[in-house]
């Protein structure tokens, strides 16, 4: 696709299929969406293709979406669950942070979002501190179906295909995907190593692997390195979901797995106490997309429906973004999922900032791309927040400016807004 190209005729089946599976880059997604917005024929194709899927396969088992796509769909459900989900995630984290301050160095386990989302699944092997390990056993009916659905190609095994594999995701403590993380799988017997790098969705896949014992090291700039021992079984896919802690790269957390690998259906992740000061994540807007950066590592945080972000602000556990239509979106998980804020102000919102009124430069520079600001100035800016160094939520004030210059203020993380 050339720069700024519109599809002269129609996008091909590859692009339409990848669009429906959210597998396109944001640029391609935007271009296809633009075409779909005016092309009845292609809209019919993508919707009908979904019918072919839903009526034949969804009726049997869950849709075969990759982890990142599931996350994008779940954000909608998270919006419905809203307050409950936020409380369930934020409260345990707050509790363990509080304990950490009281007793430095104490390692405690906290419930992760995954555990909370699947309370019926028993947690086994609590010794697996920062890595959750599960094995999908094809012999077990449900697991087999789910695995097969998740990757049809994986299930295509011939008689000679006896190798196993290890695949999974790497995320930070908030659950946000960590792209570009280095995953090293080293055979315990021979020391031979295989390397992988997580993709933009934080996924990795190492295959084929001869059955045996392996040590998996996961590292990413700005995070503590993790190490996990796993067993790869013949013709089986071992799933490994790693949650990295923010810290210096030289710190290594060695984790010894239990005698047997976990066999949970959902990731049983836990977190360790961060022993050092945590560098705050910064949020910036670049080319209409919110970017979350820790140091030099940045990851895109796309607003719902591909809305064009013009401004971002962060404070406490909350990240807010303003789109070009004047809509304000809230996120309590580092921008991974967004929910629209209830409009309680007049006019069109054009500016958004965070911080106490007396401290306009709260944890960074105020970022705005409101009309009138030069593109060079507004193209990039940063507002920091979240993380251990962030002040308590109650001390954070968000300010919203409308197109008439009037200001509205929220001191409860965007729930209520009052005119200033």
């Amino acid at each position, binding site marked *: 696709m050339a720069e700024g190209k519109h599809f002269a005729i129609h996008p091909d089946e590859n692009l339409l299929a990848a669009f429906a599976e959210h597998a396109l880059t944001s640029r391609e997604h935007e271009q296809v969406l633009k075409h779909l917005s*005016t092309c009845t024929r292609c809209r019919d194709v993508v919707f009908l293709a*979904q019918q072919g899927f839903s009526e*034949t396969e969804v009726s049997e088992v869950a849709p075969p979406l990759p982890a990142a796509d599931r996350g*994008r769909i779940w954000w909608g459900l998270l*919006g419905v669950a809203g307050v409950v989900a936020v409380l369930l995630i934020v409260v345990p984290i707050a509790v363990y942070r509080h304990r950490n301050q009281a007793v430095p160095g104490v390692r405690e386990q906290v419930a992760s979002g995954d555990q909370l989302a699947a309370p019926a699944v028993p947690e086994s092997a609590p010794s697996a501190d920062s890595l959750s390990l599960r094995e999908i056993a094809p012999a077990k009916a449900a697991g087999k179906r789910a695995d097969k659905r998740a990757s049809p190609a994986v299930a295509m095994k011939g008689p000679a295909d006896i190798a196993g594999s290890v695949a999974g995701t790497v995320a930070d403590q908030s659950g946000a995907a960590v792209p570009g993380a280095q995953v090293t799988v080293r055979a315990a017997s021979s020391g031979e190593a295989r390397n992988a790098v997580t993709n*933009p969705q934080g996924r990795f896949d190492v295959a*084929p692997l001869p059955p045996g014992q392996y040590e998996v090291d996961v590292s990413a700039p700005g995070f503590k390195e993790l190490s996990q021992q796993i067993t790869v079984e013949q013709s089986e896919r071992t799933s490994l979901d790693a949650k990295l802690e923010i810290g210096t790269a030289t710190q290594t957390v060695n984790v010894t797995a239990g005698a047997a690998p976990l066999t949970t259906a959902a990731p049983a992740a836990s977190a360790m106490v961060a022993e050092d000061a945590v560098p705050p994540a910064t949020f910036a807007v670049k080319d209409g997309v919110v970017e979350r950066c820790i140091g*030099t590592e940045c990851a895109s945080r796309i607003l719902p429906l591909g809305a064009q972000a013009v401004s971002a602000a962060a404070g406490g556990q909350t990240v807010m973004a303003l789109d*070009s239509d004047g809509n304000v979106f809230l996120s309590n998980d580092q921008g991974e999922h967004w929910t629209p804020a209830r409009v309680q102000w007049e006019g069109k919102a054009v500016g958004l900032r965070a911080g106490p009124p007396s401290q306009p430069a709260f944890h960074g520079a105020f970022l705005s791309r409101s009309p009138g600001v030069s593109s060079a100035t507004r193209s990039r800016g940063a507002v920091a927040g979240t993380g251990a160094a962030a002040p308590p939520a109650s001390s954070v004030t968000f300010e919203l400016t409308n197109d008439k210059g009037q200001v509205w203020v929220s001191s409860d993380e965007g729930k209520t807004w009052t005119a200033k």
Partner: protein
Amino acid sequence: MSIGGRAEQSGTESVAATLVRLWRESCGERFGFAYGQFEELMLEVAASHHFGCGVYEATPDAQKAAFFDSIRVKELVLARACALGNEPAWEAFLIEYREMLYSAAYGITKQDGVGRELADSLYAELFGMSARGEQRQSKLASYTGRGSLAGWLRSVLAQRYVDEYRKARRLVNIEDQDTDLLAATPEAPTIEEDAQREALGESVGEVLTQLAAQDRFLLHSYYLDGRNLAEIGKLLGVHESTISRKLKRLGQTLRQQILRKLKSSGLSSRAAEEALSCDVRDIDVNVRRLLQVAEKESFHEVQATEVQTSEVQAAKTFSAGEES
């Protein structure tokens, strides 16, 4: 293009290393696929999609590696091996996708006979059958691994079906249109009403043509195509309640903008409100055409065959939704 470049950031796999890893993951050797072929195939895909970012040669190594990583290499190799006539690959394809192909065709057409016919025709094309016994050319050779192979098959089926179906629907719609035009006998409006409607038509036109792509997509899908919230939400990867909120907000915004336009055209606030409450069937507005006006080159085939009545009905539904 060189693929042996070093990674731009420490800790990031080089493009060459990424391709080697993906080659191992693709299990291409099972189907007699050599590494050279695999590399060539991946570069072909990258060239056809410009690494997903609009440029090819100037793409940073990290972006190249990320693009290659996003390719469904196992499915891509399977499809290409099938296209090259590899028997084990074809057997593996049949085991995994044949049943899915037929059931998907039924899901799309909702008719046993038509579904089977659709799947049969594509099945032959996938195999690469040629009526004249020429060189085998499989449709699978055009799969690029950007999405799943199953998703691609569904899209190809849907595309074929839509193209066939639309041909038939055009004929029906043209007949319907003639009937509706004959049946339409509107009462003569007063001069004041006429002015209001004219102002409203102009205002609606101006506002709709300025809509962003995603807003046009939502309006089109929901009000003109009749897709439900769940379908739209699933396609966009968000919950249906989000679509509902977005549509509601969009409706409110449109209403405000239209009111503003009406007032700026000289109508009083009351007259503007009255104009908005008039029967949409009395307004001479082609909603579909206005929503499509941004990309005339891509919908030329649609314009001539759309039905006026469906547009009016859609506009009425949209307006009624806003009123409530």
